[in-house]
């Protein structure tokens, strides 16, 4: 037994087993577990948030052009369509943040083997916060 372990150890870690999934195979939802779907959701919201980061910097650049440019933007930003996009942004932030916390808690070993329970707890908290925030945001339109 010990020889087998020593022999395996001498060969080094397995870098890649089999051909594996295609590079974007993580996007394929067929036959996936809840954990994988949560991972896919995390990546999609993450990419959306990176896009928003640069959009946010571009919008804030209007401040450099002075008060008039900013006030023109405020008129546009308070339309119902923009406020709905704010709610979508909040969904992305809540999903990515709460799922990220779940992954961190499980990955660091603080709460191992509770992935599903944490996911549902996050979904509950996220839905509650999103509903309250959406009410607050859209209530102003």
């Amino acid at each position, binding site marked *: 037994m010990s020889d087998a372990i020593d022999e395996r150890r001498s*060969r*080094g870690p*397995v870098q890649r087993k089999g*051909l594996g999934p295609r590079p974007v195979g993580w996007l394929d939802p067929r036959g996936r577990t809840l954990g994988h779907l949560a991972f896919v959701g995390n990546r999609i919201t993450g990419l959306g948030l*990176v896009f928003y980061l640069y959009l946010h910097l571009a919008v804030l650049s209007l401040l450099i052009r002075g008060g008039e440019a900013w006030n023109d933007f405020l008129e546009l930003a308070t339309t119902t369509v923009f406020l709905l996009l704010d709610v979508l942004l909040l969904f992305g932030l809540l999903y990515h943040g709460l799922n990220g916390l779940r992954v961190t808690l499980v990955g660091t070993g603080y709460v191992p083997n509770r992935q599903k329970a944490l996911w549902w707890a996050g979904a509950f908290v996220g839905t509650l916060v999103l509903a309250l925030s959406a009410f607050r945001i859209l209530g102003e339109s």
Partner: protein
Amino acid sequence: MTVRTDGGIGTERRDRQTLVWRATASTGVALVVLITVHMVAHHFVVQGTGGLRSYRQVLEYVANPVIFTIELLFLVVVTVHAMLGLRSVLFDLATGERARAWISRALVVLGVVTVAYGVTLIVTLASRA
């Protein structure tokens, strides 16, 4: 088919992956706090104009030394987290060592440019208050 590499290289790569995972997780936890502060302070305590600050309000807000520091910290942490996340996605598309090295370099440049632009923006606005 099983591809194995030298144990030393494997250990080094694993250490790097662990470091990247820890950096992503720690910046992510920091962001949960910073984004909550950012969102509440920017949008949920402001009355009128759809929870958005007017031009004058933004300048006064950013000029506050505490807010100025928090916003700079937020900018750095969010950029580091975003670049690490992008790296993870792009590494799935490029499995070659050279391609991955170029991706890492490009993301470092993009991250530095992003932080530099953000700092310029914050400092300029604070100086106008």
